[in-house]
């Protein structure tokens, strides 16, 4: 039985990419916690994951319709990016800022656990493949 190494790592690398992107957005939110009129952004991890795990899914981007042979097929963003959404604030503040520090910290903790879990999965997958290669020696 042939093992496709890409297939072995594909899903996990997508998760890492998404978690990465989300952490970046959350870091942005924390950085702009005191910026007037900043609107907090986040991605829906579940929806993004569902999108990314479709074969060839362009993570949330609407593909451009090519109705004639001459149309250039515009490439969307990479497979690991998804469109961020603005967060609906629980307690809007007077300066128009919608960052909720508690929420951001909770989301960072959650994403970081997801990321570490994926790393653990990847590690054991690598170990398994290595065992298969060396015959467990």
């Amino acid at each position: 039985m042939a093992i496709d190494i890409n297939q072995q790592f594909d899903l996990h690398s997508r998760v890492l990419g998404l978690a990465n992107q989300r952490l970046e957005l959350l870091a942005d939110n924390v950085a702009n916690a005191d910026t007037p009129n900043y609107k907090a952004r986040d991605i829906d991890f579940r929806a993004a994951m569902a999108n990314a795990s479709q074969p060839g899914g362009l993570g949330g981007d609407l593909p451009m319709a090519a109705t004639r042979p001459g149309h250039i097929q515009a490439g969307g963003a990479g497979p690991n990016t998804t469109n961020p959404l603005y967060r609906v604030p629980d307690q809007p503040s007077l300066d128009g800022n919608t960052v909720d520090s508690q929420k951001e910290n909770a989301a960072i903790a959650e994403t970081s656990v997801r990321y570490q879990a994926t790393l653990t999965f990847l590690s054991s997958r690598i170990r398994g493949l290595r065992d298969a290669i060396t015959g467990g020696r």
Partner: protein
Amino acid sequence: MGLFRIFDIAGSAMSAQSVRLNTTASNLANANTVASSAETAYRSRQPVFQTVMDNSAGMDPASAGVRVAGVVETTAPPAKVHDPGNPLADEEGYVYMSNVNPVDELVNMISASRSYQNSVEVLSTSKELLLRTLSLGQ
């Protein structure tokens, strides 16, 4: 690599918050400064934060942290105090106090230090993730 960008983002936040702490320190230090005219009286300084929008990284409008757009002086009028014995008093015997409100400044200081701590937390989380990623497969 996104985790490296988080260093930039959190770093920009920390530098912006330290500017804020800096102005707070300056304001509190000058809370009791007097001047001989309303124009030269010390006015409390406040930084204005602005999101840095960075479209260059190939990402869709992703911002890259925060920066201090400028430091503005507040417009509240300085208090006029009758103190003829002060060497800085004008011919009518008045000195002009700074318009610093110490309560505002202390609140600002606490808020800035909490935001700074949050950024440090973000930084250390992403550093940990990065190190774990680097040791993957070992």
